[in-house]
């Protein structure tokens, strides 16, 4: 009993000290790490922008293993951080459990859907942005072979592949799309060596434009593309700057905006499902000084007309996730 009284005393002290951090937002990165130059780093960018503009503070954590997800979410909710934002579809199942235990905390999940009153689920229309970069790839290829390196083989990544393939074929009917995935586990998000090997194999099959939708693995894909003198397409963040003049473009997924808006709105935010599509500026392609000379006027015109057509609803890009199939094989 004496021991428990000590426990209780200590709990009270902890509650007092953590009280200071009350209502600061928190961010949890999925496997792949904070500085993957892609998906997670985009979330960090959004959070940093919010902190710089408002002078606020936020806490973040990188996961060490798959089994830690629930503990990380619980720890932030327990210490009074609000809202708690997390990236990655793998967070959905643990969040379902934790969110129910902390009804007064608002949670945001990016790339996943949790149907609870205190959760905002943000999903992106990746197929639309991928269609645009696919269009560019189809116009840029000289060998009529373009390729795709996916991270983990899941419906989300197949949606990238499917949108990309549709865009490439729309630009040039002759184009052959080579599709490979890095793996079937979350380790596939952070395996640049394997990414590089897959790219080399695709180059030997004739590919001269490669799109990496693979988180940290993409760094290896882009590097191999540069080494072998072919064009590459980055993902999530604007990765054009990594190899100026050699990255055709990047499929931007504005995770930063999702994080920024969640931090900005704070605990009282509107929850429920938020779809960030092309019309809402959730996805797009990167056009900056690093790739200016790679994009011809003709390409720019084609992509902006497609952009308008998609935003206006005149052009529908098939979403792999809607029926687990794609008009062009992405197995």
């Amino acid at each position, binding site marked *: 009993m004496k021991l428990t009284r000590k426990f*209780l005393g200590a*709990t009270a002290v*902890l509650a007092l000290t953590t009280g200071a951090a009350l209502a600061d937002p928190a961010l949890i990165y999925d496997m792949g790490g904070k500085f993957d130059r892609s998906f997670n780093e985009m979330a960090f960018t959004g959070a940093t922008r919010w902190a710089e503009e408002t002078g606020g503070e936020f806490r973040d954590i*990188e996961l060490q*293993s*798959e089994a*830690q997800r629930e503990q990380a979410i619980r720890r932030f909710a327990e210490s009074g951080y609000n809202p708690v934002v997390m990236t990655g579809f*793998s967070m959905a199942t643990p969040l379902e459990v934790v969110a129910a235990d902390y009804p007064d905390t608002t949670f945001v999940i990016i790339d996943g859907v949790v149907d609870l009153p205190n959760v905002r689920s943000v999903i992106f229309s990746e197929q639309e942005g991928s269609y645009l970069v696919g269009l560019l790839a189809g116009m840029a290829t000289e060998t009529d072979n373009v390729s795709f390196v996916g991270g983990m083989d899941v*419906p989300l990544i197949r949606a990238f592949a499917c949108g990309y393939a549709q865009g490439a074929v729309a630009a040039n009917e002759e184009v052959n799309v080579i599709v490979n995935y890095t793996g079937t*586990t979350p380790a596939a998000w952070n395996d640049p060596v394997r990414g590089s090997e897959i790219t080399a194999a695709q180059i030997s099959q004739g590919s001269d434009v490669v799109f990496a939708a693979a988180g940290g693995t993409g760094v290896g894909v882009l590097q191999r593309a540069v080494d072998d003198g072919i064009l590459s397409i980055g993902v999530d963040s604007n990765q054009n700057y990594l190899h100026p003049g050699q990255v055709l473009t990047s499929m931007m997924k504005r995770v930063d905006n999702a994080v920024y808006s969640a931090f900005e709105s704070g605990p009282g935010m509107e929850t429920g499902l938020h779809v960030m599509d092309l019309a809402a500026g959730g996805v797009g392609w990167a056009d900056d000084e690093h790739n200016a000379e790679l994009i011809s006027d003709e390409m720019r015109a084609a992509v902006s007309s497609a952009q308008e057509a998609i935003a206006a609803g005149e052009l529908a890009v098939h979403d792999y996730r809607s029926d687990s199939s794609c008009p062009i094989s992405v197995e």
Partner: protein
Amino acid sequence: MSSKRMPKWADVLLVPILSLIIAFALSALVILAIGEDPVRAMRLMITGALGSTYGWGYTLYFTTNFLLTGLGVSIAFQARLFNIGGEGQALIGGLGVALVCLFIPWPHWSLAIIAAIAASAIFGAVWAAIPAYLQAKRGSHIVITTIMFNFIAFSLMNYMLSHVLRPPTSMDPATARFDNVLRLPRLHDILAPMGIDFSRAGPANVMLFVALLACVLAYFLMWRTRLGFEIRAFGKSEPAAHYAGISGVKIIMVAMLISGALSGMMAVNSVMGGPQRLVMNAVEGAGFIGIAVALMGRSHPIGIIAPALLFGFLFQGGSELALETTIPREMIIIIQALVIMFTGALDNMVRTPLETLFALMRRRT
């Protein structure tokens, strides 16, 4: 184990404590080198792991994992079998737990836990049986084969989770959640009737008591039964054991089966007690930490309890450290590695000078 040159208390307490102090001092230097405050880091680890019932809930949860894997390694050690395969045996044990929990509609958790313990023990034992057989009959070195079986277990679990057990609608390579009936009572549920308020969040559960009971039973097995005597005799001297009519093949098989079963049982805690579903990497390295726990506990079933708690503290305190400071997550692994190195591998660095010291003192008196 106890040396004549040193009193027993020094052997059991002084050596590990001195080793720990050296390990922590070195860790402090590393933390200083990256520009963080080691005192603050230590304080954060202590409050994070032991400062609240929330922290205790996690610390004791990890302790349960390390108790069972540490016990598994200890039993094999007693027969001088270096079972590095605790990780793989626990992973496969997790498969047993998941199958029992997913496909049988249990009316109550108390029945399910018995079945889950049995299934995980059988799965873990089977996984240990193959390297054991190869060692006993073919002389293939147990260290090599158990390490290789870890990789096979990783790959098998990757396959099972991403292709077989994953629900069709889910993108995450993990099984569906088990029925809520199967939720194991946590310390919060157990202590509440006694009027003790324990955090709901911590996943420490009834498996803690099962693990402690396993330690006591293992003690009786090793020191109060003929089988335990045979295992220890075999470990001390194989030719002597053979001369006394003890079958080497039998001892290798039995010791490894018990070892694998105990490591496998750890999965009941980390699968059924924690996330209530089988996720990838559910063991989180507990199989390897079990080796350190066994080394520090001198392979004694009761002796491993304190090191298991220490590593539970390091594990939970380490994750708090990653959360509250800019100390990168890799640093926590360095601290754990230093503790393992000094308490396990570099044991003689502390022991030999101490023995000399005690010998000198004795000569003087």
